[in-house]
Every structure is written in structure tokens, then in C-alpha cells.
């Protein structure tokens, strides 16, 4: 059984924002517009998070691309009253838009603020709807949504694998963010398979996870900058 994980190398990341944009396009995230985003309603499944350390001449700013970290012990799943979010068997924390009642308890419980809410019906000015990705459903208003590790691609890959008469394995899937990264800072693959690139990288001394102390066991790892 595969367990999908991601490794983001902050030493390679140049903060270009491609992953963010790719995620938007791949997953049909509708822009909320100027008014709404001025009210902090803008949302991204993956955001580039600025982190400042030091000050004065020694100041360091680093940009951390942060998708849902896909915990193995997700606080959001524990609190969902209707089983609208759950931990899939391949380790992907999924959201069922058709069942979510929009209580936003999962948002309140997520220590990573990885979940976002459709405050209004998503809007597609002009013909933008034409350009949406048919593999990913458009969300209705009033439901919570989140990064799915491009689950639709996983599904596709699994079908292809099945057609090829084998199990889905490492390297079959690349999420949109990893695919679009010009610095190739994002690796995606199977953490179960000890030989996979990702599990290799997770053993690097530079590897760390966001708030590993919370015991949520995220499957998104980061590699610290070298210098």
C-alpha cells in the first residue's frame, strides 16, 4: 500500500509562486476578488509563507510553500461531525464537498490553517469556467475545501497502473505544484517505499516537519536551507 508524501527543499525554492498558481489552475480555485480578499477571504490550497528570522543586517527571510501537510493523525478528521473529511487509505486527508455541512470545526482545529471555506458561491467572470479542469469538481458555497495532493491525478494514475496490470507505485503521480516548480524543489512520492526519492530525502539531516511536536505526523517534509 502506497503512502503519498511530499518533500519541499527550501534550499532550492526561489519563492517564484509557480506552485501556488499551478494549484489554482489545476484545482479550479476561483478568485474571490478585491473586496473579499481585502476581508481576508482570499484562499489558496498552497501558499508561499514568508518567515522572517533575525533582524537588522542579519535579517533572513525565507519563503515556505505550504500545502495541507496531510497529517497521518489529522486533527481536522477527529473533529468533523459528519465524516466529511477523513484520512484516505493512501494517507491523503480528503474532503467530501457534498457532505460537508460547513461548521468549519476542522478549520478551527487545523494547526496549519490548511483548510479554507467558500464564504460565497465561487465566481467565474466571463468564460473562465471554460478553462476549468474537468477532473476536479467545482465547489458549492458553504463548504470547506483543502489541498488533496492532486488526488484526481492519483486516481488517474491508479487506473493506468491497473490497466498495465500492476499496483500504483512511486513516481506514477506528480501533483501540479511539483510539476510546475522550475527549481524542482518539490518531490512527491511513496513514503512506504524505502528506496523512493522522497523517503530518501526524509532521512536527510536537513529534513524537518512543520510543528512535528504536535504529534500530527505530517507527510509533507521540508529540507532546511544549507548555508
Amino acid at each position, binding site marked *: 500500500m502506497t503512502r503519498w508524501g511530499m518533500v519541499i527543499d527550501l*534550499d*532550492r525554492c*526561489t*519563492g*517564484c*509562486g*509557480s506552485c*501556488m*498558481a*499551478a494549484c489554482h*489552475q489545476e484545482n479550479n*480555485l476561483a*478568485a*474571490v*476578488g*478585491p473586496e473579499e*480578499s*481585502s476581508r481576508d477571504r*482570499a484562499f*489558496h490550497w498552497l501558499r*508561499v*509563507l*514568508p518567515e*522572517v528570522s533575525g*533582524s537588522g543586517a542579519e535579517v533572513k*527571510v525565507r*519563503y515556505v510553500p505550504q500545502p495541507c501537510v496531510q497529517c497521518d493523525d489529522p486533527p481536522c478528521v477527529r473533529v468533523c461531525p459528519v*465524516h466529511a473529511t477523513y484520512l484516505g487509505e493512501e494517507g491523503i486527508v*480528503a474532503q*467530501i464537498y*457534498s*457532505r460537508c455541512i460547513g461548521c468549519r470545526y476542522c478549520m478551527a482545529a487545523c494547526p496549519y490553517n490548511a483548510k479554507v471555506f467558500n464564504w460565497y458561491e465561487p465566481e*467565474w*467572470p*466571463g*468564460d*473562465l*469556467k*471554460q*478553462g*476549468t*479542469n*474537468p*477532473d476536479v*469538481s*467545482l465547489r458549492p458555497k458553504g463548504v470547506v475545501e483543502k489541498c488533496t495532493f492532486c*488526488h*484526481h491525478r492519483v*486516481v488517474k494514475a491508479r*487506473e493506468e497502473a491497473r490497466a498495465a496490470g500492476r499496483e500504483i507505485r512511486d513516481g506514477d503521480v506528480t501533483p*501540479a505544484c511539483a*510539476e*510546475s*516548480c*522550475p*527549481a524542482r*524543489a518539490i518531490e512527491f512520492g511513496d513514503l512506504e517505499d524505502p528506496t523512493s526519492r522522497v523517503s530518501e530525502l526524509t532521512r536527510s539531516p536537513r529534513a524537518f516537519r512543520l510543528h512535528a511536536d504536535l504529534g500530527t505526523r505530517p507527510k509533507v517534509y521540508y*529540507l532546511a536551507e*544549507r*548555508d
Partner: protein
Amino acid sequence: MIVPRREFLKMLGVATGTLGLGGCDRDWLVPDRLVELAQRGPGLESQVPTICGLCESGCGLTVRLVDGLPVGLKGNPHHPLNRGGLCPVGQAGLEVLYAPNRLRAPQRRGAGGELEPVSWEDALAEVGGLLGKMRSEGQGSRVALLTDEPGRLFHDLAARFAQAVGSPNISSTKSQGLLPFTLTQGIAQVPGFDLDKADLVMSFGLELFEDGPAPLHAISAMVGSRQTEERAAHIYAGTRLSAGSSRAEVYVPIEPGTHGALALGVAHVLVREGNYDRDFVAEHTFGFEDWIDDQGRERLGFRRLLLERYYPDRIARICGCDAATVVRVARRLGEAAAPLAVVGGEGSQGSNATWTGVAVHSLNALLGVFDRPGGVSLPPPIPLTPLADPETSSLEQAESIFAPGGSVGAFGVDAVEKLAERVIDGTYPIDLLIVVSSNPVYSSPAGQRLSQAMEQIQSVVVLTPFLDETSAHADLVLPTHVFLESWQGTTTPAAVAFSTLGLGKPVIEPLFDTRHPGDVLLELGRAAGGPAGAALPWVSYPDYLKERMEGLVISGEGSVVTGSFEESWVHFLEERGWRFLEHRSLENFWAALERESGWWNPVPARGDWARLFRTPSGRFEFFSQTLERHLRDVGGMTADVEMSEEEALERGIAAMGSQVDGDEVLLPHFEPPIASGAGELQLLPFRPITARGHLAAVSPMVAEMFGYPFLDGWQTWAEIGTDTAHDLDLADGDLVAVESDRGSIEAVVRVHPAAVPRTVHVPVGLGHVQPGGVADGIGSNPIEIVEPIRDNLSGVLSTTSSRVSLRLLRRRPHGGPAPMDGGH
């Protein structure tokens, strides 16, 4: 498996392609047929490569089509420039295609000043007729053409068009910043910088990973296609720490416009410590040591100049950094195996941009990186079929409106400014102005002047997919395809070490009644009739492209990219021997190009010093004889009395208005930047990656992530340092008016801990006037308020020479710390 999983699949809708498009309440602008197809189609998928036309880079794209409708874009891994990566703006390609404010038919400005739809036939007949008339009356020079359509191929066609209608007036609105290379290398192009093999790149003001001709190339070359251990390090010297530069190994914050000084300081340390490439300097440079000219006069050498004038302490004073940093950086450069010094961004926008460029480039000379892997070289020429001379010789070629001329002393001009001024002061009448894929009124500091000039020009024709600032002054607006609908031929962007040629083919038929600018020019030529038509024999733009490509087939140089970048390389090498295998005939080649969308030639001609240094001395000139001659001529022109060379030179220098004297003028030196205006802060407009391409503002996604490094969108921000904010008692999120002597714009304060004191950085990209567009009237455009100070050597207008002050309009509406100190 448990129930919810099934539901989950259902929701993710692997089988619900229709869900994506179903239930559309709006009336559709795209042809119903397409909607029908999208909703009921069999759902057949295909991947088609093409070229991104949103900015000058021309990255490779792979378009995902379902039933022939594009539903997704990603970087083309085969393309040698971006190698699979794709910037945020590129990602927004589909939003540009389906944007609500696409122009759907030609528009003519009626009597009432309102735009009214008009048929293509009438529109073209009208303009063509006018062209024909002017040409036959020998008034061709009253036609002017401004185009920013990327790539040499289109530019050649436009030039041919101008020629055909007898006009010498064609220019791009963008300045390439060639002059430093002309002065030092005697070449009229930006040389290639081999980022693929450089191991340390020192950037003077150029946000390598965000700005410049091809940021995605920089990312993939320096990081993307290397192992983490081998990725190129970089050092950034500038006034602002962008997201990309925050990865720099060293960040040297310096006063605005002092990049050149820093470069010279570094040079000083290199020379003093003997840490430079002696052989190269000895063999291939001119004017390093003191020398005696043919009149037997003692001339100042670069070495002495450096050692006497540019010692670190002085540099530290000028740049506001500390001397130790200068030394540290210099040593780091000296030790590096394959160092590079590049300039750009704010470094090439000051009033002293040319001198900055020269100083930085002379670093490359000291480091002796020319013509070697990881260094500076000329990309191999692209053997396009040359255009046969048209029989327009009958027309005597008038002087171009863009000719520098006059006693200003500048090598070149700022096209937009020149056009505007000469039309307004009536010294060069223009009756027909054609603007292609460019929005100078928005993007040029002389924009306002241009719009005044446009009012005086009898007829202004603008080719654009969207109504914008420039088309607002047009008498005729001709809607063009967006890139996904059109054939594109792009050529290597500036500063790339290898040469590429991109062939983009349309992935969807035009949604509306639009045309390709190339086709429009061809038709106009035909409509003008006579020799004009004859000079533009091609039926259509792709037809023209095909003819130009033939040259590649004949030469057999380079190869069509295949597989990943690395594979292409291998493939390329294999192919050297029996190269004709692949493109034996034009047809095969064309087919291959269509299939792969890219041709490239990665091998520079090594050891061809004559081609690299076309200076009088045939070497890299620290002491620029080119400049010396130029200044003599200029000096000569100032008065029509006979005068000695020295006198002429003196006068020339005076005319140019340098702040140093003697030979130093002709050597790489530091010209203090000019800043005008009353304010206490220096305004430095910059172009974030989200502002690439003049179509960016039509995409809601790009607008929403416009300020993503601050988790911000839909607004123009004014970035200031922590202490500046403290001094001005401003907090992150405050709304301020940025006020220069020329005007005032609104912006939201963003406090960045690493911004240099007394500077304010405002991104271009928003503040558009685009009727019907999602970002129409959102944000503001800093270019509106910059003082048009001229770089006296290149004639280009500086955008970073204005002093401004910030006036608080409204405090941050709600409390809480800013993104940059969130959680700290």
C-alpha cells in the same frame, strides 16, 4: 472500501467532466459549439506543445486539451528555456484566453469619440488605403510603428512592413540596455550569460529569479536542472530583498543607483589582491594599464583608476554598506570557479544605468569569464532565411524619427519619449501610428506625453486583444489573437547563452473575430497595394515563418528539442554527425517543430574573439575608444568651428554632462545617480514576477496573488524598510499616497525588514484602465509619477530617479502584526 471514499471519488469527479462546465448561468461569449463540445464531448484528451506569449521570455508550454478545448497549461519539459517550469503568469494563460474583456471585433472611434464596431474589411481597407496614399505621395515617413511583440521573427516582418510602406520609423518601446556591451565589446546585442554552468552569479540590481528577460530560465539553469549540491549560488546587491533574492548567499543592501560603485569596489579588491585573470586581461582587454596614445599622450589605465579612486572605504561611503562586505564579496567572486556578474532591474534603470552596466561588465573582464563555460559568450546565430531586399529602393529613406541626432550626446533615444516630443513640437509630423502588442501609455515614463501626441496624430491604429490605456487613444482598435489562438515564432531572449527558436502553433481556433498581428500587417501591405504588397509576398504569418525556417534546414545547425532538457542535449550531440537525418526537408523540419515547438543550438562558436569583441582594438575595452570617438563627434557638432580632438572631446563630455573628467569618463567609473523631486524617499518601481507581460492584469488569479510574498493580492503596495516605517510612523497595511512632483498614487504600506532605508519600492502591473477587465482600476501604476530623468549616454528614460514622500491616508483598518512579522 468504506462508503465515503466512493463519494470522494464522485466529488473529485474523475467521470464528471461536465461538472466543471455544467450549470453555467452566464450567457456565453464563446461560440455555443464549444460549450456544447465541452459539455457533451467524448472527453478525449491530448497534449499539445506551444509557446507562451505572455512575456518576452517565450517559455515552452504543454497545453492539455479535452475534445480540443484547452483545460490546462504546464511548462514544456522539452523546452530548453523553462524545462518544465512555468511562472504564475504563464499558468494564467487560460484566464487570458477566456477573459471577460476580450475584444470581439474591430472598433472604430466614431464622431462622438465612442468606439463602434466595424468590419475587418472596412477597417483594413481604410488603413490600407491611407498607407497606399501616403506611400505614393512619398509621405511614407509619416507612418510610425511601435511593437513589443516578442521575438526577432515578428520584428523582422514589422521592419519589412515599414520598409514596404516607406517608413523608417519602427521601434520597440523597450530598451534592451545594449549600450554597455556596445561600449566594451562593440556589439549591438546583449551577450549570453551561461547560467547553466556558472557556480556563482553576482547580480547588481537584477532580481534573477523574478525579473529580467527570462527568470524561469535563470531558475531552471541555476537550480532546477542541477543537484542541490551543485546549484549555483548567487549574491545580490540592491535596495530590496525580493522573494527570489532572499535565497542569495549574500545580500548587499546599497543606496539606490550605486551598483556601479560597488562593482568598481569589488574590482578594486580583485585587482589589489591580484585575484583577477591576468592572462585574459593581458591578451583580450584594452586600457587596463596606463598607455600612450598615438599622439604620445599618457592615458589613464583602469588599474590605476581603480586603485586610486575606488578603494573599499570610499565605496562603503557611497553605497552605504561596510567595506568588509565589499572585500568579502570580492574574495568570494575571486575564489569561485565560474563566477558571473550580471546587471539589470533597478541596476539598469537609473540615470547612470549605462555606467553601471559598464562597471559590472568590466568585472566579467577582470574575472576573465569570456568565451568559456559558465561565462559570457555570444549565442550562436539563428540561421533564419534572410529576407530578400524588396524593390523599395525607389524611395529615398528619410531619417528616422527615432534617430538620436542633435547635440544631446546620447547614443540612442527613448522611443516613446522621442516620438511623443517630436510629434508634439511638430519637428517630425506623423499621420499614422501603428501600435502592435504594446501598451506604452501605461508602461513608459513618457506615457502621458505619448497620449497627448496621439491626440495630434491623424490616425492611431492599435493592435491588441484587450482595451487598455493605449487603445483608449486609438482611432481604430484591431483585436488580435491571444497566444493560444495564434502562430508564434519566438527567438532567444536576451542574455541567454544558447540560441533557441520557438514555434507556437494555435491550440484552439480563435474564439472571436480576431486576427494575428502578422496577418494584419500582411493584409495592410496588400491593401496598400503596389510595391508595398509586393514587398510582403506571404499569404499568412505561418507562411512567412515557414519561409524563414528554411534557413535552419539548409544550415542544418542546431536541432529540434526532444525529450527532457538533458535528453535533448545528448540527442543533440549524437546528431552532430548525421544531422540531416532529422530535418532533411523543410516539411519534416516544420512537422518536427510543430510537434516539439522548439529548436535550439547550445554550442557557441568558441575562440571567435573577433566576433566577441568588435571594438576598434578588437579587445574588451575598459577604455572605450568607441565612446571616445562618439564624444568627439558630438563635441564637433556642438559648434561648426574647426577644433582639435581634445577640444571636441571636452565639448562632447560637457554635452554628455558627466560628473567626472579626463580619461575617467572613458573608463568604467561611477556616475552619481541623479534624483529629482522634493520627497525624502527614493521611488524604485519594480516588476514582480506576477506583473510579467502586459496581459497579466486580466487574470483574476494573478491579480489575487499579485503580492503573494506578503500573502496579499489585488492591491499595489509600497514596500519600505522597518526603520523607514518607524521614522515615518507608518505601519504595515496603512494606506498611503505616494507623492512625487508629477503626481500621486495610492498604495498600501508593506514593511519588509530588509529594504534599504529611505527607499520605497512600488510594483508595476496593476493600476490598469481596462474596460470590462477584472483588474480594471484596481491598484495603481507607479510609472505615472516617475520623473522622466534621462540617461545621457543611452538616451533612455530612468524610472528610478524620483524622490517621493508618503502621506498617510488611512491607518490599517484592523490591528494585528504584518505578514513579515507574523508570529514573531
